[in-house]
Protein backbone atom coordinates (compact mmCIF):
# COMPACT_ATOMS: atom_id res chain seq x y z
CA UNK A 1 0.00 0.00 0.00
CA UNK A 2 2.80 2.41 0.97
CA UNK A 3 4.69 1.53 -2.19
CA UNK A 4 1.80 2.29 -4.52
CA UNK A 5 1.42 5.71 -2.87
CA UNK A 6 5.06 6.52 -3.49
CA UNK A 7 5.01 5.59 -7.18
CA UNK A 8 1.86 7.64 -7.73
CA UNK A 9 3.52 10.68 -6.22
CA UNK A 10 6.66 9.98 -8.27
CA UNK A 11 4.67 9.96 -11.52
CA UNK A 12 2.92 13.21 -10.80
CA UNK A 13 6.17 14.91 -9.93
CA UNK A 14 7.88 13.61 -13.02
CA UNK A 15 5.12 14.77 -15.31
CA UNK A 16 5.06 18.24 -13.83
CA UNK A 17 8.86 18.34 -13.93
CA UNK A 18 8.83 17.46 -17.62
CA UNK A 19 6.08 19.95 -18.32
CA UNK A 20 7.83 22.82 -16.55
CA UNK A 21 11.18 22.01 -18.13
CA UNK A 22 9.45 21.91 -21.49
CA UNK A 23 8.02 25.37 -20.87
CA UNK A 24 11.39 26.76 -19.92
CA UNK A 25 13.15 25.20 -22.87
CA UNK A 26 10.37 26.44 -25.14
CA UNK A 27 10.72 29.97 -23.82
CA UNK A 28 14.49 29.87 -24.23
CA UNK A 29 14.16 28.62 -27.80
CA UNK A 30 11.74 31.39 -28.68
CA UNK A 31 14.07 33.95 -27.16
CA UNK A 32 17.14 32.75 -28.97
CA UNK A 33 15.78 31.53 -32.29
CA UNK A 34 15.77 34.85 -34.18
CA UNK A 35 19.41 35.44 -33.29
CA UNK A 36 20.28 31.88 -34.16
CA UNK A 37 18.57 32.07 -37.53
CA UNK A 38 20.21 35.37 -38.36
CA UNK A 39 23.59 33.91 -37.46
CA UNK A 40 22.93 30.92 -39.67
CA UNK A 41 21.87 33.15 -42.55
CA UNK A 42 24.94 35.30 -42.12
CA UNK A 43 27.21 32.43 -43.04
CA UNK A 44 25.13 31.35 -46.00
CA UNK A 45 25.55 32.30 -49.60
CA UNK A 46 22.80 34.56 -50.90
CA UNK A 47 21.43 31.62 -52.84
CA UNK A 48 20.85 29.46 -49.77
CA UNK A 49 18.90 31.99 -47.79
CA UNK A 50 15.42 32.04 -49.26
CA UNK A 51 15.05 28.47 -50.33
CA UNK A 52 11.91 26.65 -49.28
CA UNK A 53 12.23 24.37 -47.39
CA UNK A 54 15.07 26.20 -45.60
CA UNK A 55 18.49 24.67 -45.84
CA UNK A 56 19.95 23.51 -42.57
CA UNK A 57 23.01 21.97 -44.19
CA UNK A 58 24.91 24.18 -46.56
CA UNK A 59 28.28 25.38 -47.61
CA UNK A 60 29.23 28.10 -45.09
CA UNK A 61 30.95 31.26 -46.17
CA UNK A 62 32.55 34.22 -44.52
CA UNK A 63 31.92 36.37 -47.58
CA UNK A 64 29.25 38.42 -45.86
CA UNK A 65 31.45 39.28 -42.91
CA UNK A 66 34.29 40.23 -45.21
CA UNK A 67 31.95 42.49 -47.11
CA UNK A 68 30.74 44.17 -43.95
CA UNK A 69 34.07 44.75 -42.27
CA UNK A 70 36.53 45.23 -45.08
CA UNK A 71 34.74 46.28 -48.21
CA UNK A 72 32.32 48.59 -46.47
CA UNK A 73 34.12 51.25 -44.38
CA UNK A 74 30.89 52.30 -42.71
CA UNK A 75 30.91 49.52 -40.17
CA UNK A 76 34.25 50.24 -38.56
CA UNK A 77 33.60 53.97 -38.36
CA UNK A 78 30.15 53.50 -36.87
CA UNK A 79 31.47 50.92 -34.43
CA UNK A 80 34.08 53.40 -33.21
CA UNK A 81 31.45 56.11 -32.94
CA UNK A 82 29.16 53.88 -30.92
CA UNK A 83 31.97 52.86 -28.59
CA UNK A 84 33.30 56.37 -28.04
CA UNK A 85 29.86 57.81 -27.43
CA UNK A 86 28.77 55.00 -25.12
CA UNK A 87 31.92 55.10 -23.00
CA UNK A 88 31.97 58.90 -22.72
CA UNK A 89 28.30 59.04 -21.85
CA UNK A 90 28.72 56.37 -19.22
CA UNK A 91 31.70 58.02 -17.57
CA UNK A 92 30.03 61.43 -17.39
CA UNK A 93 26.58 60.13 -16.36
CA UNK A 94 27.91 57.87 -13.65
CA UNK A 95 30.16 60.48 -12.10
CA UNK A 96 27.77 63.40 -11.94
CA UNK A 97 24.72 61.23 -11.46
CA UNK A 98 26.23 59.45 -8.49
CA UNK A 99 27.16 62.74 -6.88
CA UNK A 100 23.61 63.98 -7.32
CA UNK A 101 22.17 60.70 -6.09
CA UNK A 102 24.36 60.88 -3.01
CA UNK A 103 23.25 64.42 -2.28
CA UNK A 104 19.61 63.45 -2.67
CA UNK A 105 20.09 60.45 -0.41
CA UNK A 106 21.86 62.25 2.40
CA UNK A 107 20.55 65.79 2.45
CA UNK A 108 17.21 67.47 2.56
CA UNK A 109 16.47 69.98 -0.12
CA UNK A 110 13.75 72.57 -0.20
CA UNK A 111 10.62 70.89 -1.48
CA UNK A 112 11.50 67.66 0.30
CA UNK A 113 10.39 64.83 -1.90
CA UNK A 114 9.62 66.96 -4.93
CA UNK A 115 13.15 67.01 -6.26
CA UNK A 116 13.64 63.22 -6.35
CA UNK A 117 10.15 62.71 -7.73
CA UNK A 118 10.74 65.22 -10.49
CA UNK A 119 13.71 63.12 -11.52
CA UNK A 120 11.30 60.26 -12.04
CA UNK A 121 8.93 62.64 -13.78
CA UNK A 122 11.55 63.52 -16.35
CA UNK A 123 11.70 59.87 -17.34
CA UNK A 124 8.08 60.07 -18.47
CA UNK A 125 8.92 62.56 -21.18
CA UNK A 126 8.69 61.03 -24.65
CA UNK A 127 12.02 61.59 -26.35
CA UNK A 128 10.40 62.88 -29.52
CA UNK A 129 9.38 65.89 -27.46
CA UNK A 130 13.01 66.75 -26.85
CA UNK A 131 14.36 65.87 -30.27
CA UNK A 132 12.78 68.79 -32.02
CA UNK A 133 14.25 71.56 -29.86
CA UNK A 134 17.51 69.67 -29.42
CA UNK A 135 17.83 69.46 -33.17
CA UNK A 136 17.30 73.21 -33.51
CA UNK A 137 19.68 73.91 -30.64
CA UNK A 138 22.41 71.67 -32.01
CA UNK A 139 21.93 73.21 -35.42
CA UNK A 140 22.48 76.70 -34.11
CA UNK A 141 25.59 75.61 -32.22
CA UNK A 142 26.95 73.83 -35.26
CA UNK A 143 26.96 70.56 -33.37
CA UNK A 144 24.89 68.53 -35.77
CA UNK A 145 26.53 65.29 -36.80
CA UNK A 146 29.12 65.41 -34.01
CA UNK A 147 29.91 62.89 -31.33
CA UNK A 148 29.63 65.62 -28.71
CA UNK A 149 25.99 66.20 -29.54
CA UNK A 150 25.14 62.56 -29.02
CA UNK A 151 27.23 62.32 -25.87
CA UNK A 152 25.34 65.26 -24.40
CA UNK A 153 21.95 63.91 -25.36
CA UNK A 154 22.65 60.37 -24.17
CA UNK A 155 23.95 61.72 -20.88
CA UNK A 156 20.76 63.71 -20.51
CA UNK A 157 18.72 60.56 -21.09
CA UNK A 158 20.82 58.58 -18.62
CA UNK A 159 21.12 61.05 -15.77
CA UNK A 160 17.61 60.72 -14.32
CA UNK A 161 17.93 56.96 -14.10
CA UNK A 162 21.47 57.05 -12.74
CA UNK A 163 20.54 59.63 -10.11
CA UNK A 164 17.42 57.72 -9.09
CA UNK A 165 19.20 54.37 -8.85
CA UNK A 166 22.27 55.68 -7.05
CA UNK A 167 20.04 57.49 -4.58
CA UNK A 168 18.43 54.14 -3.81
CA UNK A 169 21.78 52.45 -3.38
CA UNK A 170 23.13 55.21 -1.17
CA UNK A 171 20.04 55.20 1.00
CA UNK A 172 20.67 51.56 1.77
CA UNK A 173 23.94 52.47 3.47
CA UNK A 174 23.72 53.80 7.03
CA UNK A 175 24.96 57.38 7.28
CA UNK A 176 26.71 56.56 10.54
CA UNK A 177 29.63 55.18 8.59
CA UNK A 178 30.45 58.49 6.97
CA UNK A 179 29.72 60.38 10.14
CA UNK A 180 32.21 58.36 12.12
CA UNK A 181 34.77 58.91 9.39
CA UNK A 182 34.12 62.65 9.49
CA UNK A 183 34.47 62.73 13.26
CA UNK A 184 37.89 61.23 12.65
CA UNK A 185 38.72 64.25 10.49
CA UNK A 186 37.66 63.13 7.03
CA UNK A 187 35.95 65.60 4.73
CA UNK A 188 32.49 64.75 3.43
CA UNK A 189 33.86 64.13 -0.02
CA UNK A 190 36.71 62.05 1.35
CA UNK A 191 34.27 59.95 3.35
CA UNK A 192 32.23 59.44 0.23
CA UNK A 193 35.22 58.26 -1.70
CA UNK A 194 36.84 56.04 0.88
CA UNK A 195 33.97 54.57 2.84
CA UNK A 196 30.79 54.64 0.84
CA UNK A 197 32.16 54.10 -2.64
CA UNK A 198 33.40 50.52 -2.10
CA UNK A 199 30.05 49.63 -0.59
CA UNK A 200 28.02 50.64 -3.61
CA UNK A 201 30.21 48.82 -6.10
CA UNK A 202 27.37 46.55 -7.28
CA UNK A 203 25.13 49.58 -7.65
CA UNK A 204 27.78 51.30 -9.73
CA UNK A 205 28.18 48.28 -12.00
CA UNK A 206 24.42 48.18 -12.49
CA UNK A 207 24.32 51.83 -13.41
CA UNK A 208 27.30 51.50 -15.76
CA UNK A 209 25.61 48.61 -17.54
CA UNK A 210 22.41 50.63 -17.92
CA UNK A 211 24.24 53.60 -19.40
CA UNK A 212 26.28 51.54 -21.85
CA UNK A 213 23.18 49.62 -22.92
CA UNK A 214 21.06 52.70 -23.40
CA UNK A 215 23.69 54.54 -25.36
CA UNK A 216 24.70 51.60 -27.56
CA UNK A 217 21.10 50.87 -28.49
CA UNK A 218 19.88 54.44 -28.74
CA UNK A 219 18.15 55.22 -31.99
CA UNK A 220 16.03 58.35 -32.05
CA UNK A 221 18.61 60.98 -31.20
CA UNK A 222 21.20 59.33 -33.44
CA UNK A 223 18.65 59.36 -36.23
CA UNK A 224 17.82 63.03 -35.91
CA UNK A 225 21.17 64.48 -34.95
CA UNK A 226 23.64 62.64 -37.16
CA UNK A 227 24.07 62.02 -40.84
CA UNK A 228 27.56 60.87 -41.74
CA UNK A 229 30.39 61.61 -39.37
CA UNK A 230 28.87 60.67 -36.08
CA UNK A 231 26.70 57.86 -37.36
CA UNK A 232 26.25 55.06 -34.85
CA UNK A 233 25.65 51.36 -35.44
CA UNK A 234 21.86 51.45 -35.09
CA UNK A 235 21.67 54.08 -37.83
CA UNK A 236 24.08 52.19 -40.05
CA UNK A 237 22.02 49.05 -39.78
CA UNK A 238 18.77 50.80 -40.57
CA UNK A 239 20.30 51.99 -43.81
CA UNK A 240 20.14 48.46 -45.07
CA UNK A 241 16.50 49.17 -45.84
CA UNK A 242 16.90 50.45 -49.34
CA UNK A 243 14.10 50.87 -51.85
CA UNK A 244 16.08 48.81 -54.34
CA UNK A 245 15.97 45.80 -52.09
CA UNK A 246 17.76 44.57 -49.02
CA UNK A 247 20.99 42.61 -49.03
CA UNK A 248 19.78 40.22 -46.40
CA UNK A 249 22.89 38.08 -45.97
CA UNK A 250 25.09 41.12 -45.56
CA UNK A 251 22.52 42.57 -43.17
CA UNK A 252 22.65 39.40 -41.09
CA UNK A 253 26.42 39.60 -40.82
CA UNK A 254 26.19 43.26 -39.81
CA UNK A 255 23.54 42.46 -37.24
CA UNK A 256 25.57 39.68 -35.68
CA UNK A 257 28.66 41.86 -35.47
CA UNK A 258 26.66 44.68 -33.94
CA UNK A 259 24.88 42.48 -31.43
CA UNK A 260 27.89 40.33 -30.57
CA UNK A 261 29.11 42.54 -27.70
CA UNK A 262 25.63 42.44 -26.19
CA UNK A 263 25.28 38.69 -26.58
CA UNK A 264 28.70 38.02 -25.12
CA UNK A 265 28.08 40.16 -22.07
CA UNK A 266 24.49 38.99 -21.56
CA UNK A 267 25.27 36.83 -18.54
CA UNK A 268 27.13 39.68 -16.94
CA UNK A 269 24.31 42.08 -17.80
CA UNK A 270 21.65 39.72 -16.50
CA UNK A 271 23.38 39.45 -13.16
CA UNK A 272 23.26 43.15 -12.41
CA UNK A 273 20.36 44.48 -14.42
CA UNK A 274 17.33 43.14 -12.66
CA UNK A 275 18.74 42.99 -9.16
CA UNK A 276 20.00 46.53 -9.49
CA UNK A 277 16.73 47.80 -10.91
CA UNK A 278 14.53 46.23 -8.31
CA UNK A 279 16.80 47.04 -5.40
CA UNK A 280 17.23 50.58 -6.51
CA UNK A 281 13.69 51.31 -7.59
CA UNK A 282 11.02 49.03 -6.25
CA UNK A 283 12.09 49.43 -2.68
CA UNK A 284 12.20 53.24 -2.74
Amino acid at each position, binding site marked *: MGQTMRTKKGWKEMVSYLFLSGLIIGA*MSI*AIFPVFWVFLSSIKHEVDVFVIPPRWVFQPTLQNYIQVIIENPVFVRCFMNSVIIAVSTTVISVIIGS*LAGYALAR*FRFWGGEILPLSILFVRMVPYI*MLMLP*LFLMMKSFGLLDTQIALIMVHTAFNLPLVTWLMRGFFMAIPPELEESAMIDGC*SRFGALLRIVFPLVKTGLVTVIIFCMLLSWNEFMSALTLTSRDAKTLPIAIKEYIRPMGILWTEFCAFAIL*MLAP*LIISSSYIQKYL*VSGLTEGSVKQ
Partner: protein
Amino acid sequence: MNASFHSRIFDILQKRENIKYLFILPTGIFLFLTIIYPLGYSFILSFHSMNLAKPYLGTHFVGLGNYIECLSSQRFFSSVKATLNYTAIVVSVQFFLGLGLALVLNSVKSPKVTRSVSTVLILPFILTPVAVGLIWRFLLQYNGIINYFLSLLKLGPVEWLSEPLSARVAIITVGVWRGTPFAMLVLFAGLRSLPIQIYEAAAIDGVSKVQCFRYITLPLLIPFINFVIIMRVMFELKIFALPYALTGGGPARSNEMLSLLGYIISFRLFDMGLGAALSYLIFLIILIFILIYLKLLSKAER
Protein backbone atom coordinates in the same frame (compact mmCIF):
# COMPACT_ATOMS: atom_id res chain seq x y z
CA MET B 1 44.70 87.95 1.34
CA ASN B 2 44.67 85.01 -1.08
CA ALA B 3 45.14 82.40 1.61
CA SER B 4 42.34 83.68 3.80
CA PHE B 5 40.02 84.05 0.79
CA HIS B 6 40.62 80.45 -0.24
CA SER B 7 40.25 79.13 3.27
CA ARG B 8 36.99 81.03 3.60
CA ILE B 9 35.62 79.38 0.48
CA PHE B 10 36.84 76.06 1.75
CA ASP B 11 35.13 76.67 5.09
CA ILE B 12 31.88 77.45 3.38
CA LEU B 13 32.16 74.32 1.28
CA GLN B 14 33.06 72.17 4.23
CA LYS B 15 30.05 73.36 6.17
CA ARG B 16 27.78 70.37 6.23
CA GLU B 17 24.82 71.65 4.39
CA ASN B 18 26.44 73.63 1.61
CA ILE B 19 28.32 70.88 -0.14
CA LYS B 20 25.07 69.31 -1.17
CA TYR B 21 24.58 72.07 -3.72
CA LEU B 22 27.97 71.35 -5.19
CA PHE B 23 27.11 67.70 -5.61
CA ILE B 24 23.85 68.35 -7.30
CA LEU B 25 24.99 71.25 -9.44
CA PRO B 26 26.49 69.40 -12.45
CA THR B 27 23.44 67.19 -12.83
CA GLY B 28 21.11 70.11 -12.33
CA ILE B 29 22.83 72.27 -14.93
CA PHE B 30 23.03 69.43 -17.41
CA LEU B 31 19.40 68.45 -17.07
CA PHE B 32 18.35 72.07 -17.26
CA LEU B 33 20.23 72.66 -20.50
CA THR B 34 19.27 69.42 -22.19
CA ILE B 35 15.77 68.77 -20.89
CA ILE B 36 14.11 71.67 -19.10
CA TYR B 37 15.17 74.34 -21.58
CA PRO B 38 14.24 72.27 -24.67
CA LEU B 39 10.88 71.48 -23.06
CA GLY B 40 10.19 75.18 -22.59
CA TYR B 41 11.44 75.97 -26.08
CA SER B 42 9.20 73.26 -27.48
CA PHE B 43 6.26 74.61 -25.52
CA ILE B 44 6.65 78.08 -26.95
CA LEU B 45 7.28 76.65 -30.41
CA SER B 46 4.00 74.74 -30.27
CA PHE B 47 2.13 78.02 -30.40
CA HIS B 48 4.00 79.17 -33.48
CA SER B 49 4.07 78.09 -37.06
CA MET B 50 7.54 77.12 -38.19
CA ASN B 51 8.21 74.97 -41.21
CA LEU B 52 11.87 74.38 -42.04
CA ALA B 53 10.91 73.09 -45.46
CA LYS B 54 9.20 76.38 -46.24
CA PRO B 55 11.47 79.00 -44.66
CA TYR B 56 9.98 81.74 -46.82
CA LEU B 57 6.82 81.54 -44.74
CA GLY B 58 8.73 82.66 -41.65
CA THR B 59 7.79 81.96 -38.07
CA HIS B 60 4.70 83.53 -36.60
CA PHE B 61 2.41 83.15 -33.66
CA VAL B 62 -0.64 81.01 -34.26
CA GLY B 63 -1.99 80.52 -30.76
CA LEU B 64 -3.74 77.19 -30.45
CA GLY B 65 -3.68 76.67 -34.22
CA ASN B 66 -1.30 73.72 -34.12
CA TYR B 67 -3.19 71.99 -31.33
CA ILE B 68 -6.48 72.39 -33.16
CA GLU B 69 -4.91 71.04 -36.33
CA CYS B 70 -3.71 67.97 -34.42
CA LEU B 71 -6.95 67.32 -32.62
CA SER B 72 -8.99 67.60 -35.79
CA SER B 73 -6.67 65.34 -37.74
CA GLN B 74 -7.75 61.84 -38.65
CA ARG B 75 -4.14 60.79 -38.81
CA PHE B 76 -3.61 61.87 -35.20
CA PHE B 77 -6.58 59.91 -33.92
CA SER B 78 -5.67 56.77 -35.83
CA SER B 79 -2.24 57.08 -34.29
CA VAL B 80 -3.68 57.46 -30.79
CA LYS B 81 -5.90 54.45 -31.34
CA ALA B 82 -3.04 52.38 -32.72
CA THR B 83 -0.72 53.33 -29.88
CA LEU B 84 -3.25 52.69 -27.13
CA ASN B 85 -4.33 49.43 -28.70
CA TYR B 86 -0.74 48.29 -29.07
CA THR B 87 0.23 49.32 -25.54
CA ALA B 88 -2.80 47.75 -23.86
CA ILE B 89 -2.37 44.41 -25.58
CA VAL B 90 1.40 44.25 -25.36
CA VAL B 91 1.66 45.18 -21.68
CA SER B 92 -1.10 42.77 -20.67
CA VAL B 93 0.49 39.87 -22.51
CA GLN B 94 3.95 40.78 -21.24
CA PHE B 95 2.65 40.85 -17.70
CA PHE B 96 0.75 37.57 -17.75
CA LEU B 97 3.38 35.71 -19.74
CA GLY B 98 6.08 37.18 -17.54
CA LEU B 99 4.24 36.18 -14.38
CA GLY B 100 3.71 32.65 -15.67
CA LEU B 101 7.32 32.26 -16.65
CA ALA B 102 8.47 33.74 -13.36
CA LEU B 103 6.38 31.22 -11.44
CA VAL B 104 7.77 28.38 -13.54
CA LEU B 105 11.32 29.60 -13.05
CA ASN B 106 10.69 30.01 -9.35
CA SER B 107 10.03 26.31 -9.01
CA VAL B 108 13.59 25.63 -10.12
CA LYS B 109 15.84 25.14 -7.13
CA SER B 110 19.28 25.34 -8.65
CA PRO B 111 20.65 28.89 -8.91
CA LYS B 112 22.99 27.80 -11.71
CA VAL B 113 20.04 26.79 -13.85
CA THR B 114 18.08 29.97 -13.15
CA ARG B 115 21.12 32.04 -14.00
CA SER B 116 21.67 30.31 -17.35
CA VAL B 117 17.98 30.51 -18.18
CA SER B 118 17.91 34.20 -17.28
CA THR B 119 20.96 34.83 -19.43
CA VAL B 120 19.25 33.40 -22.49
CA LEU B 121 15.87 34.92 -21.74
CA ILE B 122 17.23 38.42 -21.29
CA LEU B 123 18.50 38.57 -24.88
CA PRO B 124 15.33 39.92 -26.49
CA PHE B 125 15.34 42.74 -23.97
CA ILE B 126 18.92 43.92 -24.38
CA LEU B 127 19.37 43.62 -28.12
CA THR B 128 19.25 46.86 -30.09
CA PRO B 129 15.58 47.57 -30.85
CA VAL B 130 16.10 48.73 -34.41
CA ALA B 131 18.15 45.63 -35.15
CA VAL B 132 15.44 43.49 -33.57
CA GLY B 133 12.85 45.17 -35.78
CA LEU B 134 14.88 44.50 -38.90
CA ILE B 135 15.63 40.94 -37.86
CA TRP B 136 11.92 40.22 -37.47
CA ARG B 137 11.31 41.91 -40.78
CA PHE B 138 13.72 39.35 -42.20
CA LEU B 139 12.03 36.47 -40.42
CA LEU B 140 8.52 37.55 -41.38
CA GLN B 141 9.09 37.80 -45.08
CA TYR B 142 6.68 35.88 -47.24
CA ASN B 143 9.27 33.23 -48.03
CA GLY B 144 10.95 33.54 -44.65
CA ILE B 145 11.42 31.09 -41.86
CA ILE B 146 8.35 32.00 -39.80
CA ASN B 147 6.04 31.32 -42.71
CA TYR B 148 7.84 28.05 -43.26
CA PHE B 149 7.09 26.91 -39.70
CA LEU B 150 3.51 28.07 -40.06
CA SER B 151 3.07 26.14 -43.27
CA LEU B 152 4.33 23.02 -41.49
CA LEU B 153 1.49 23.55 -39.01
CA LYS B 154 -0.91 24.04 -41.92
CA LEU B 155 -1.50 27.61 -40.73
CA GLY B 156 -0.31 28.70 -44.12
CA PRO B 157 2.11 31.42 -45.14
CA VAL B 158 0.90 34.91 -44.25
CA GLU B 159 1.72 38.17 -45.97
CA TRP B 160 2.74 39.58 -42.59
CA LEU B 161 3.89 43.11 -43.12
CA SER B 162 1.76 44.08 -46.09
CA GLU B 163 -1.66 43.81 -44.47
CA PRO B 164 -2.73 46.19 -41.68
CA LEU B 165 -4.16 43.50 -39.41
CA SER B 166 -1.35 41.01 -39.72
CA ALA B 167 1.19 43.80 -39.47
CA ARG B 168 -0.42 44.87 -36.19
CA VAL B 169 -0.27 41.29 -34.96
CA ALA B 170 3.38 41.13 -36.01
CA ILE B 171 4.28 44.36 -34.22
CA ILE B 172 2.47 43.25 -31.09
CA THR B 173 4.20 39.89 -31.18
CA VAL B 174 7.63 41.46 -31.54
CA GLY B 175 6.77 43.90 -28.75
CA VAL B 176 5.79 41.02 -26.50
CA TRP B 177 8.90 39.07 -27.49
CA ARG B 178 11.00 42.06 -26.56
CA GLY B 179 9.44 43.09 -23.25
CA THR B 180 8.35 39.85 -21.59
CA PRO B 181 11.86 39.00 -20.33
CA PHE B 182 11.87 42.23 -18.35
CA ALA B 183 8.52 41.43 -16.72
CA MET B 184 9.59 37.88 -16.07
CA LEU B 185 12.90 38.76 -14.47
CA VAL B 186 11.50 41.50 -12.24
CA LEU B 187 8.63 39.29 -11.07
CA PHE B 188 11.04 36.42 -10.58
CA ALA B 189 13.24 38.63 -8.43
CA GLY B 190 10.12 39.57 -6.53
CA LEU B 191 9.12 35.95 -6.00
CA ARG B 192 12.59 35.09 -4.80
CA SER B 193 12.50 37.92 -2.30
CA LEU B 194 9.39 36.63 -0.56
CA PRO B 195 10.00 35.24 2.93
CA ILE B 196 9.62 31.49 3.15
CA GLN B 197 8.30 31.60 6.70
CA ILE B 198 4.89 32.78 5.62
CA TYR B 199 4.51 29.83 3.28
CA GLU B 200 5.67 27.42 5.97
CA ALA B 201 3.12 28.85 8.38
CA ALA B 202 0.45 28.61 5.70
CA ALA B 203 1.36 24.99 4.97
CA ILE B 204 0.99 24.19 8.66
CA ASP B 205 -2.40 25.86 8.67
CA GLY B 206 -3.39 23.72 5.70
CA VAL B 207 -3.81 26.50 3.17
CA SER B 208 -4.12 25.21 -0.40
CA LYS B 209 -1.61 26.19 -3.07
CA VAL B 210 -4.12 28.26 -4.98
CA GLN B 211 -5.14 30.13 -1.86
CA CYS B 212 -1.48 30.65 -1.06
CA PHE B 213 -1.02 32.29 -4.40
CA ARG B 214 -4.08 34.50 -4.17
CA TYR B 215 -3.79 35.70 -0.63
CA ILE B 216 -0.08 35.61 0.10
CA THR B 217 1.99 35.75 -3.07
CA LEU B 218 -0.01 38.24 -5.09
CA PRO B 219 -0.39 40.91 -2.40
CA LEU B 220 3.31 40.68 -1.52
CA LEU B 221 4.23 40.99 -5.17
CA ILE B 222 2.26 44.19 -5.68
CA PRO B 223 5.21 46.62 -5.57
CA PHE B 224 6.93 44.52 -8.24
CA ILE B 225 3.77 44.25 -10.31
CA ASN B 226 3.31 48.01 -10.19
CA PHE B 227 6.90 48.53 -11.19
CA VAL B 228 6.58 46.21 -14.18
CA ILE B 229 3.32 47.67 -15.39
CA ILE B 230 4.31 51.31 -15.02
CA MET B 231 7.69 50.76 -16.64
CA ARG B 232 6.24 48.80 -19.55
CA VAL B 233 3.36 51.19 -20.15
CA MET B 234 5.67 54.21 -20.13
CA PHE B 235 8.01 52.46 -22.50
CA GLU B 236 5.47 51.07 -24.97
CA LEU B 237 3.52 54.33 -25.27
CA LYS B 238 6.70 55.98 -26.52
CA ILE B 239 7.78 53.17 -28.81
CA PHE B 240 9.64 54.32 -31.89
CA ALA B 241 12.44 52.14 -33.23
CA LEU B 242 10.43 48.92 -33.46
CA PRO B 243 7.56 50.14 -35.66
CA TYR B 244 10.04 52.27 -37.61
CA ALA B 245 12.15 49.25 -38.48
CA LEU B 246 9.34 46.75 -38.99
CA THR B 247 6.98 48.69 -41.21
CA GLY B 248 7.90 52.36 -41.14
CA GLY B 249 4.41 53.03 -39.85
CA GLY B 250 2.70 51.12 -42.60
CA PRO B 251 1.07 49.53 -44.31
CA ALA B 252 -0.85 52.69 -45.18
CA ARG B 253 -0.11 54.33 -41.81
CA SER B 254 -2.07 51.66 -39.95
CA ASN B 255 0.71 51.20 -37.41
CA GLU B 256 1.90 54.75 -37.10
CA MET B 257 2.54 54.93 -33.38
CA LEU B 258 2.55 58.36 -31.77
CA SER B 259 6.30 58.84 -31.48
CA LEU B 260 6.71 57.74 -35.08
CA LEU B 261 4.07 60.24 -36.18
CA GLY B 262 5.88 62.94 -34.21
CA TYR B 263 9.11 62.07 -35.96
CA ILE B 264 7.49 62.18 -39.39
CA ILE B 265 5.86 65.55 -38.74
CA SER B 266 9.02 67.12 -37.33
CA PHE B 267 11.75 65.56 -39.40
CA ARG B 268 10.19 64.52 -42.68
CA LEU B 269 7.64 67.24 -43.15
CA PHE B 270 9.71 69.66 -41.04
CA ASP B 271 6.58 71.25 -39.64
CA MET B 272 8.22 72.16 -36.35
CA GLY B 273 5.35 74.01 -34.71
CA LEU B 274 2.94 71.18 -35.42
CA GLY B 275 5.49 68.63 -34.23
CA ALA B 276 5.95 70.51 -30.96
CA ALA B 277 2.20 70.65 -30.36
CA LEU B 278 1.90 66.96 -31.20
CA SER B 279 4.63 65.98 -28.78
CA TYR B 280 2.96 67.91 -25.97
CA LEU B 281 -0.28 66.10 -26.72
CA ILE B 282 1.60 62.78 -26.59
CA PHE B 283 3.08 63.78 -23.24
CA LEU B 284 -0.39 64.66 -21.99
CA ILE B 285 -1.69 61.24 -22.97
CA ILE B 286 1.14 59.49 -21.14
CA LEU B 287 0.53 61.66 -18.09
CA ILE B 288 -3.18 60.90 -18.09
CA PHE B 289 -2.53 57.20 -18.20
CA ILE B 290 -0.05 57.26 -15.36
CA LEU B 291 -2.48 59.28 -13.27
CA ILE B 292 -5.35 56.91 -14.05
CA TYR B 293 -3.19 53.95 -13.10
CA LEU B 294 -2.13 55.56 -9.82
CA LYS B 295 -5.74 56.43 -9.03
CA LEU B 296 -6.82 52.84 -9.67
CA LEU B 297 -3.94 51.70 -7.51
CA SER B 298 -4.88 53.81 -4.50
CA LYS B 299 -8.48 52.72 -4.89
CA ALA B 300 -7.50 49.06 -4.93
CA GLU B 301 -5.47 49.52 -1.79
CA ARG B 302 -8.59 50.36 0.12
